[in-house]
């Protein structure tokens, strides 16, 4: 049934890979945002940190499309620059968590037994801490800053990633094709690399995209509390925190960074949805 349907519609390979229309929109938004972050110095019409006493709380106009903040800085330019910190923390923290969490999950799931028990209890311990509390205590020790926020979020994510990987590895490990590979003389290492990882990648990649969206929010929360990026560095969460005071008098200071966060989270979520579809090999949810 599926075979016939797939063969006749001849869906372009690249489009399926990216997870259909939704995934494609998500990847496009993300690509645009990353470009914006990289090209911020070229794109920004004004300096992100230049204070202009004549433009305090100036309304949006053509040259300053997002208006100006309490120090007369151009909100549009600041949002463009803010994507640098926000995106690198979102992507970096999840990558770091995956570098640590995926091996833990694969090892625990594939080896099982005592290794599984010990590793998963350690992971549970980490998981039992409230995420924000963990981040705040780490920042209390290491001091605030972007790198520390990235590290803190990564530590929050390690147990989540490890758990997701472990559960999918447990499923894959029991598949007959793994036993089949062993009867064909494959070593454990070859099986992990050649069969277990590719077949358990789906759920963790979906999870990763969702976690990236969350990272933006956590990071914004940390900055909101004054524990993430430090002023005057433009950062979306920090801008949200500052704009909060002037919501009634100059809403644009608050609204535009908020929208910028929303767009980013949306992009990651769309990517997650797309990935989930493309990793479903039989196209049940298609």
């Amino acid at each position: 049934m599926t075979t016939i349907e797939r063969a006749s519609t001849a869906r372009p390979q690249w489009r399926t890979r990216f997870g259909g229309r939704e995934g494609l929109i998500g990847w496009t938004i993300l690509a645009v945002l990353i470009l914006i972050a990289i090209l911020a110095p070229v794109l920004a019409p004004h300096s992100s940190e230049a204070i202009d006493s004549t433009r305090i709380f100036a309304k949006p106009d053509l040259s300053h499309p997002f208006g100006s903040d309490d120090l007369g800085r151009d909100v549009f330019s600041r949002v463009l620059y803010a994507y640098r910190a926000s995106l690198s923390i979102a992507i970096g923290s999840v990558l770091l968590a995956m570098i640590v969490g995926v091996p833990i999950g694969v090892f625990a799931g594939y080896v099982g037994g005592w290794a599984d028990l010990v590793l998963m209890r350690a992971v549970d311990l980490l998981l039992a801490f409230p995420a924000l509390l963990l981040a705040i205590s780490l920042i209390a020790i290491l001091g605030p800053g972007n790198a520390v926020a990235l590290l803190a979020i990564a530590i929050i994510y390690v147990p989540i990633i490890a758990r997701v990987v472990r559960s999918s590895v447990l499923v894959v490990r029991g598949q007959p094709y793994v036993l089949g590979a062993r009867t064909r003389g494959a070593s454990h290492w070859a099986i992990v690399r050649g069969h277990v990882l590719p077949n358990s990648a789906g759920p963790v990649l979906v999870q990763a995209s969702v976690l990236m969206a969350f990272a933006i929010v956590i990071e914004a929360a940390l900055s909101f509390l004054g524990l993430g990026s430090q002023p005057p560095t433009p950062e979306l969460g920090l801008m949200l925190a500052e704009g909060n005071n002037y919501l009634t008098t100059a809403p644009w200071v608050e609204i535009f960074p908020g929208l910028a966060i929303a767009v980013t989270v949306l992009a990651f979520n769309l990517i997650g949805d797309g990935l989930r579809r493309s990793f479903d090999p039989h196209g049940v949810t298609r």
Partner: protein
Amino acid sequence: MSDSLLEFRKVSVDYAGRGGTVSAVTDVSLTLIEGETFGLVGESGCGKTTLSMALMGLLPDIASVRGRILFNGSDLTTMTESQLRELRGDRISMVFQDPATSLDPTFGIGSQVADTIRAHGDVSRKQAKDRALGLLAEVGIPAAAERYADPPHRLSGGMRQRVVLAAAIANNPALLLADEPTTALDVTIQAQILDLLADLQRRHGTTILLIAHDLGVVAQICDRVGVMYAGQLVEVAPVAELFARPRHPYTRALFDALPSGSHQAGALRVIAGQVPDLAHAPTGCRFKDRCPSRLAECDETPPLAMSDSGASIACWLDPATRAAGGLGPLAIAGESNG
């Protein structure tokens, strides 16, 4: 007499579980001769698959193997994991029951055949691919080059089993273990796969150990047949002999239970009673509680003994078994009913 390729010597497999030890296979002794197709039959749970996994060295950790499994004279039970790995897929390979799940869904079918070739030889990617294409063609995959990169779910069950077979014979193994290779397929495809197996056997001289619960499958391609019941090997006979004169009461009961055209519509004949719980296996012959001609001796385990016809039976009713067990001939067959 031809050379023996594989020899099980008093092989027993125990599973240690919470509810005690389950002896899944007990004292199985069996010799496979090079080039033959040997069928191992028996109902579910009788130890056929456990025996084959013991042979591959792929039993779970909770299982313990006693006895010796000699392959070309070397004992598989004492080999290290890396020695076994060199044998697996190269000298000994295996085909499983369900072709739907024995191929990795993420990769193309061809590369999975090529992987087996590359696992056991210093072969370039290109060479492995060429050989894999040849193998796919040999097992009857039409347009193998176009299907090479297709994931398994684009193939039908029969085609997938052909791919599995291609991977199994990729390195020209001496022994091919086929664990119910046709059970998951419908009857016409089943016949095709059996033909293919017989054909590959003829061309490569591979020894095949075919595990089945279907006597029809066994009749079609096997030279000799072993019948297992509750972990014990109860009868070994040339296939024609077994079908003409089943000796062991269990084998006879199996043939009686086969539905045939001559039966009037009605209840199927079944073997009374149940397979014993192997966690508390009875001593002696394990079929005794279901046997229509039970003797007093049945509390002792009957040895598997070869009779004049070339068949070996482990039953106290059989003269050869009685001689091997040191008992005199049976006075009147079936005199005592336990």
